């Protein structure tokens, strides 16, 4: 066992944080999220330039072959800065499905472009009634000529509007909630029959509802074997869950620091409000939530790389339970201790509140993972 970041990880962290501190101030972010696209091409190019887009991918495609602990370093920094670019969707979801399940031809076609910042991806998985259940897939892909034709709808696809290339979970056989019969299909976002309705989220990211009407793709559009997509989906969503856990740790760190700072500077009754014992004890509980969240996120990031599937499920769900609870606890307390100011659009803490609230539910809320944990 070893509890420290390596020198390389520390360097990665410093490089990224240096960039974010200068190029991704709260004001800069404000401008970005108000643009039509909702993210910045320049920032994306800079992330590519720094190699951040390539961290988890193999060296042969231009990546760094990094571990999930390397990615933890990245996600913590992105979380602290509340980065709105489609990093998780592209690198953590779409790119992973290709890297882990794709053919060599798909690797060659997609990964170098992705790492170079020239291709963004998204994973179209959730449907209107599927909630957090990965087996619930009713969008159908039927054989059509040499390839497949897709019909159906996906909901709240993370950064689906920004993606050049979608990975779509589609049912090629079986009933709507069968584990078998789910296939993964690559679809260009601009392909005929794809209709994207894009939405802002309250935490200033983007999601999209996407309808597929007789969308034709070739036989080489399948990732992995027909009907055998579920195991890969679960693996990648577990991976992404570990990543957002790390992102949450970064955002919780910010909430902790900002609240502590507020307690030290805001004066009422002639003294800093941090001199009030009731608030001190609650600040301590924020710290405890942060430390516990960090520990469990570390565990999840280590185990998604090293554990067998059953243990991976158990640890990732454990992590998400604690992360969801910590997101809720810290975000609510941070706003409460900031008083009215914490409610305003102009303070970063309110944005952090919203991001933490979203992460608490992303890839399954605490209830979902409690159920999964109990079954593990």
């Amino acid at each position, binding site marked *: 066992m070893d509890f420290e970041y390596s020198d390389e990880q520390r360097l990665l962290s410093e490089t990224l944080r240096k960039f974010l501190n200068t190029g991704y101030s709260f004001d800069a972010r404000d401008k970005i999220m108000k643009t039509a696209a909702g993210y910045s091409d320049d920032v994306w190019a800079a992330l590519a330039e720094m190699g951040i887009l390539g961290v988890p991918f193999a060296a042969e495609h231009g990546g760094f072959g990094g571990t999930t602990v390397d990615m933890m370093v990245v996600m913590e920094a992105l979380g602290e800065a509340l980065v709105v670019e489609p990093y998780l969707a592209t690198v953590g979801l779409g790119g992973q499905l290709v890297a882990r399940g794709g053919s060599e031809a798909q690797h060659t076609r997609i990964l170098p472009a992705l790492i170079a910042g020239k291709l963004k991806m998204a994973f179209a998985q959730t449907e209107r009634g599927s909630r957090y259940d990965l087996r619930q897939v009713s969008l159908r892909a039927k054989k059509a000529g040499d390839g497949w034709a897709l019909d159906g709808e996906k909901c709240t696809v993370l950064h689906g509007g920004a993606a050049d290339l979608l990975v779509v979970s589609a049912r090629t056989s079986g009933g709507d909630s069968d584990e078998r019969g789910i296939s993964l299909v690559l679809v260009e976002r601009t392909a005929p029959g794809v209709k994207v309705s894009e939405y802002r989220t309250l935490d200033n990211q983007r999601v999209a509802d996407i309808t597929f009407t007789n969308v034709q793709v070739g036989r080489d559009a399948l990732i992995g074997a027909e009907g055998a997509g579920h195991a890969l989906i679960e693996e990648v969503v577990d991976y992404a869950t570990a990543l957002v856990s790390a992102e949450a740790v970064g955002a919780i760190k910010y909430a902790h620091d900002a609240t502590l700072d507020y307690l030290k500077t805001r004066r009422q009754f002639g003294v800093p409000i941090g001199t009030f014992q009731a608030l001190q004890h609650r600040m301590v509980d924020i710290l405890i939530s942060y430390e516990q969240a960090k520990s469990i996120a570390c565990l999840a990031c280590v185990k998604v790389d090293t554990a067998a599937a059953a243990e991976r499920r158990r640890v990732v769900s454990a992590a998400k339970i604690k992360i969801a609870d910590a997101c809720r606890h810290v975000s609510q307390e941070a706003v409460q201790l900031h008083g009215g100011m914490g409610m305003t659009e102009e303070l970063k803490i309110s944005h952090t509140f919203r991001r933490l609230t979203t992460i608490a539910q992303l890839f399954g809320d605490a209830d979902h993972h409690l*159920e999964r944990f109990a079954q593990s």
Partner: protein
Amino acid sequence: MDLNYSPEETAFRDEVRGWIRANLPDALRDKVLNYRELSKDDLLSWHRTLAKKGWVAPFWPKEWGGTDWTVVQRYIFEEECEAAGCPPVVAFGVRMCAPVLLRFGTDAQKQRFLPRIYNGDDFWVQGYSEPGSGSDLASLKTRAVREGDHYVVTGQKIWTTLGHYGDWIFCLVRTNANTEKRQDGISFLLIDMKTPGITVRPIVLMDQGHEVNEVFFDEVKVPAEHLVHEQDKGWTVAKYLLGYERMGTGRIAFSKRELARVKDMAGKAMKNGRPLLDDPRFRDRLSRVEVELMALEITNMRFLDQLRGGRAPGAEVSLLKIKGTEIQQAITELAMQAAGPLAQAFRPVNGDEGFDRLTASLFPRYCNLRKATIYAGSNEIQRNIIAKATLGL
């Protein structure tokens, strides 16, 4: 003790329900039930409808338009209004300014303002908090200098709810900066918001809504006749008002309606092929909120019952505020969780055809309701009050 409704009380409920059904416009009800923003006109038109019926200020003295209802009748009325989706009667005039005028106002002030408050002729708002004075209200700095028959007011108020709708604002201002205790030297002024020198600036909250404001006063001339109670004795007025301010914050009937709506949503949302409401994990959190609300409904009436005879509400309303706001927040959280991943979409970027506005409003509402434990005296301040006033600590 009997916690069942009497036949008379049930008949009263039927009467109220029937009248609301006949008088609440559908469009207005739908706006309320779908969490849409209510315009000044929306609020005032319903206020005036109630005023015409004589039901806009049940707890006022009968001579000024009160109804002489019992505590139970008042609660039944409130419950029926909320259940039906009536717009709220904004508290600042009816529940806050009016009790102050009734207790401290001159005859002239009562004659001038009370009927206009009753009839909804003026929209009142409250000027209490300042950037440096939130929980520590007595540290406020907005100053009013007496010049002849006027006060000249300069300073800034913040968190002024619905300040952009305001016709009149009641303010705490500092008329004497040299007192030993900061509580002394504060006065209570009524200010016409059309007076030159007043600027209202919106504050956008994290739900992206415009509800609160900053209000700036730049040498605003206020006739001295709009001073309530004595000069420098405004803190007495403020303390009296605090109980009334908080009395409305429990919002039990409102929470009852909202809880029923979450139950309805969770009955329709599916999880693992069954209604989410049948999922013990979700259900138990909802049940615990429901049970707290059942208890608070009784606690509320037990406490209000003790106010018979006209005693001003004391520390007991702090308890109602704490528990009531915790319940309000819990309900918005349950609603957002019931929506699951669908709660993410907030606003359409490219066309809103088929956009589900109701679901999209759940996350903003959760954000918005975080205010409930902060405003009208944060729940921390309420605990301080109970510790001191009720427990003697």
